[in-house]
């Protein structure tokens, strides 16, 4: 049924508001993760904590986790006690988006003296103290400073105590504080714009509009589900894991009456290293995987997400319990769409891609006196830097996979010139890796080769490795072959572990070979034109 015009126009305006909020963040943020890579999410919530609209920028792990987190903020600080000019903050992994590095800021929007909506954003910090963003932590306490849900500002004035404690606990205090102020400014600007919109239209609040948005989105998702085959399919996905222990993800997708149920029963137990995933983040990426296949065009909000139910046993690596370490949770979480696809492919082979490299190869580097190599060389200038790299995506039925492209994450690569301008390192190589895409009628996307070293040849650097698919390459689908596995080594040839803090000795380069995506269909069926598409990479 076609929506009435007023609903439609205000709905569009609400989505535009979330987009404005995200654009403001991109322009004024300090961290390279936010400003160059777009590792952020922004959304608008009703006073009951239901997500009404989100910006298309950013990464699904954030935005769908954020969708769950707002009700925790409201529980801690009831709406009635909120005032205009307030801002609330948290980075608690179990309450927000799964690791301490993501800071969520929530700002109430007022109209006619009443709180009518909440604006929230979540952004990735380069550093949050502790061991740093790597999988080495044995518990959350080693991973950095943890902020429960706190009031960051009242009546527009920031809490100086909170900011002082935060600054004292992170490696890049100006960046962290500058970012937080940017988040608040972006939220506040959108809150003002919302109030102006309501005033102009003579609307008291978003109550009726919110119901309409959620109902329509819910119905649209149900209609999409109704068109799917019924049944239940399962998959097992094996990951390299950490500290010599592989991790198995067991997934069962059931399409029943009016919902898609994703159940991870049988998945490995949580591990004593920081790759564990909190349930909201598991839900976020599993639901994202379902949504891309089932209803990609329905706007992402509480209504469209409701018919997708995700469960994982408590204590498993996909539902880790406090105080499990979680800093590098994306190295497991970003595989969940692959796990879901492997199930759905059994029901709808023509709508689902083969497995891809999937996890971002986040190169987190550290330099300075903290870093000493076996020869006794010590770093001089302290720095902490990060840049993102992507392997190949899985081949699609009818299309090759994408070379060096992020999926499912939505972040962008930081330009190498910016990486080198911000930290004393040199990236000597970053190019596609020929032959790494899995063969098939449609070929998997190619991975990349990345070589990086300290600018000073007499200084070591440390890498906080969190790489995957070194032992378990991306499977092909429908007769396609697996993509090439990843590799982590030094320029001397010595192999490094895929995970954990390790030293790159002075004068050496860190060499990363990123995995390729799986192929789709029988390689013998590849059309002659495919060779052209290979463009010298086969």
């Amino acid at each position, binding site marked *: 049924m*076609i*929506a009435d*015009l007023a609903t*439609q*126009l*205000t709905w*569009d*305006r609400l989505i*535009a508001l979330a987009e*404005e909020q995200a654009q*403001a963040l991109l*322009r*004024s943020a*300090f961290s*390279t993760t*936010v*400003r160059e890579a*777009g590792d952020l999410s922004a959304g608008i919530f009703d006073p009951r904590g239901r997500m009404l609209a989100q910006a298309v920028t950013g990464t699904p792990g954030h935005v769908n986790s954020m969708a769950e987190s707002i009700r925790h903020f409201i529980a801690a600080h009831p709406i009635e006690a909120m005032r205009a000019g307030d801002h609330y903050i948290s980075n608690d992994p179990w309450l927000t988006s799964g690791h301490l590095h993501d800071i969520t800021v929530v700002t109430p929007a007022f109209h006619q003296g009443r709180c009518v909506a909440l604006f929230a954003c979540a952004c990735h910090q380069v550093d949050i103290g502790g061991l740093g963003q790597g999988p080495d932590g044995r518990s959350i306490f080693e991973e950095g400073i943890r902020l429960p849900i706190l009031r960051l500002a009242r009546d527009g004035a920031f809490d100086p105590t909170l900011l002082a404690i935060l600054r004292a606990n992170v490696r890049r205090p*100006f*960046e962290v504080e*500058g970012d937080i102020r940017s988040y608040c*400014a972006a939220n506040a600007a959108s809150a003002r714009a919302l109030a102006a*919109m309501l005033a102009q*239209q*003579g609307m008291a609040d978003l109550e009726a509009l919110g119901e309409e948005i959620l109902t*329509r*989105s819910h*119905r*649209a998702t149900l209609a999409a589900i109704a068109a799917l085959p019924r049944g239940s399919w399962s998959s097992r996905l094996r990951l390299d894991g950490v500290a010599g222990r592989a991790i198995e993800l067991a997934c069962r997708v059931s399409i029943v009456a009016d919902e898609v149920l994703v159940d991870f029963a049988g998945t490995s137990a949580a591990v004593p290293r920081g790759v564990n995933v909190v349930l909201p983040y598991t839900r976020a990426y599993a639901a994202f995987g379902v949504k*891309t296949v089932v*209803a*990609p*065009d329905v706007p992402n909000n509480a209504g469209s997400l409701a018919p997708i139910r995700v469960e994982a046993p408590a204590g498993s690596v996909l539902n880790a319990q406090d105080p499990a370490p979680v800093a590098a949770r994306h190295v497991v979480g970003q595989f969940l769409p692959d796990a879901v696809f492997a199930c759905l492919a059994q029901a709808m082979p023509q709508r*689902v*891609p083969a497995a891809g490299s999937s996890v971002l190869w986040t190169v987190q580097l550290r330099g300075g006196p903290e870093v000493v190599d076996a020869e006794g060389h010590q770093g001089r200038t302290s720095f902490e830097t990060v840049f993102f*790299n*992507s392997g190949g995506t899985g081949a699609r039925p*009818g299309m090759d996979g*994408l070379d*060096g*492209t*992020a999926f499912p994450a939505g*972040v*962008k*690569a930081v*330009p*190498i010139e*910016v990486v*080198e*301008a911000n930290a004393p390192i*040199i*990236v*000597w190589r*970053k*190019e*596609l890796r020929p032959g790494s895409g899995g063969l098939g009628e449609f070929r998997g996307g190619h991975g990349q080769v990345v*070589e990086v070293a300290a*600018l000073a040849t007499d200084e070591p650097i440390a890498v906080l490795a969190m790489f995957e698919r070194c032992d378990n390459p991306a499977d092909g689908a429908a007769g396609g072959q697996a993509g090439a596995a990843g590799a982590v080594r030094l320029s001397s040839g010595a192999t490094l572990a895929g995970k954990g803090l390790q030293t790159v000795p002075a004068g050496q380069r860190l060499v990363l070979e990123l995995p390729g995506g799986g192929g789709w269909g029988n390689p013998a069926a590849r059309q002659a034109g495919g060779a052209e598409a290979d*463009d010298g*990479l086969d």
Partner: protein
Amino acid sequence: MSLSIGIDIGGTFTDFALEWQRGETLLRHTLKLPTTPHAPEQAVLDGLPQLLGGVGALPRDVTRLVHGTTLATNALIERRGARTAFLTTDGFRDVLATGNESRAAQYELFYRKPAPLVPRRWRLPVGGRIGAAGQELAPLDEAAITRHAAEMAAGGIESIAVGYLHAYAAPAQERRTRDLLGALLPGVPVSLSSEVSPEIREYERFCTTVANAYVQPIVSAYLKRLEAGLRAQGFTVAMLLMLSSGGLATVETTMRFPVRLLESGPAGGAVFAARIARDAALPCALAFDMGGTTAKLCLLEDGVPRTDRVFEVDRSYRFAKGSGMPVRVPVVELVEIGAGGGSIARVDATGRLAVGPKSAGSEPGPACFGLGGNAPTVSDANLVLGRLAAAGFAGGRMMLDAGAAEAALLSLAPERAAEDLAIAVTEVVEAGMAAAARVHAAERGAGLEDRVLVAFGGGAPLHALRLARRLGVARVIIPQGAGVGSAFGFLWANPSYEAVRGYPGSVAALDMAALEAAFLALTAEAKRVVTPALPAAAPLQIRRSAQLRYRGQGQEVTVPLPVVAPGAAMLEAAFLDAYSAQYGAPIPGVAVDLVAIAVTVSGLPEASRPPPSATSVDTLPGTTTRSLRDPDDHAPIACRVLRRDALMPDAVASGPLLVVEDATTTVIPAGCTLHVDPRGHLVIDLPAALPGMLAA
């Protein structure tokens, strides 16, 4: 005697605009011919004699000839450029292909990335490395260049781009490469990233350089043919080209940097609107151009279009940001959205009406064209509402089919009345444009309410008044000559060139003498480009700017600077002013970094002209009426229809009104008042208070 001609070659039409100051009288004349895509100069060379003949002038009477064309843009979009090779830093040959490694559509599993202009086979690695501070970390591998030269010769390479990492900070290796190639492959043009786009961020710089090399042979050959044709017809004036920045340059400069020509048409439109705004002494305005496929909006401050440093060509996924090819050169800052007369309406899965970006184009076109299209479009909605008349479209050359338009609209929701659906379609498309304007203004820290909307192009006058209401704008101007706005804009633009250079460093630690020397070098470079485009000894305007930011912050702020030797305190103060204006409060305790510096040299803008003396009147205003359905009214109203060419200066009328001319129709709702100013522009004021308007 001073006779000027502007020529704008678009995808469909080649537009001509002529201005002739004869004593006290300013004569204006326009011409529209179909574009001749196989040899674009043909339409130009056919049209000029007609244009001059129409006013009884000769080619040698022309003292100014300004040209802009979509040739370079089309070559990029249709992949019809030269066989191009790209020499780049060893280890980075795939930057062009991987870009920023992201997908412009988060939920799209079947996303397709546009193929790079240069295939991997011709992305040739060269050893050598510059660091972020401009220091040489590894020497240039000259032997590799020699080897590649042999391959390129054998492979029939027609144009070469060179892009090395950090070349914006240290161009020596790129220059050396050009010298070597000049000896090895004489006659093959070479584009250097340190000249085409000397700014940090390798993907954007490399794309821009490769695009420059890719279109260079095609653009050079075309300009040479056109110049020869002009000389043969007896033209003596040196032709100037409209650049994306809204400035003019010589043929020689354009042949070196053809990538700066990409947005010449839209830039002409912005200059056109800016001139209207200056003449009317408007401090700030919003230009609104709407055609068949897209709408463009541009903010004008003090009669000058805002400019930006980067834009995207050929957005391949639903016009989505990030799905096109980035080009980093000075450009008039436009928001372009997929909303035009041909934009197709559909109902999405949630029951929302979506309009565009898919367009019916001109073939098959909107359903009402009767050319086989049956998808409901914006033009169909305008016809059903009575904004367009079935007879009289395109100057009476085309009869529109109202029945087909209604049937197409009813396909959206058969249970609704066609008129209601037409209202929904126009409201949604106008709301989309309003949202785009608002997001854009918000990004720039600019307001919209105090602006005057200057609307031109075939579609804009149909929607301008409704759009103005949504934006809270009180006045709309529909200029004279709006149908060929860009071509007039060419006439009114100024020779201008921006030279830029990456200049990384902490403001507090800069060597100010070296910085001043760098500014002077850029000034000299820009002067060399601009002076040949100006009369001898013409006065020059020199403007300096710097891109500054807080250390660690992502986005640079372009800050205008006085033309004096710079100092740290001056740079910081200028930055803090600009930062506060754009983002609110400054951030205490953070150092300020310089990223790049730029110098723009231009001719002095012409003083605002007095209004022309009144022209003669051929007919009395028409007294016909048409039935018009206004979205705010429940029933159709009988609306007076006036012919634009019959409206005399100082004529006054009240809405509801339709003012028709060959190229467009201006819809003036009830409550609005029309005044024709001495220049023949339609100036329309909206009533102060408008209840019940949806601010979407």
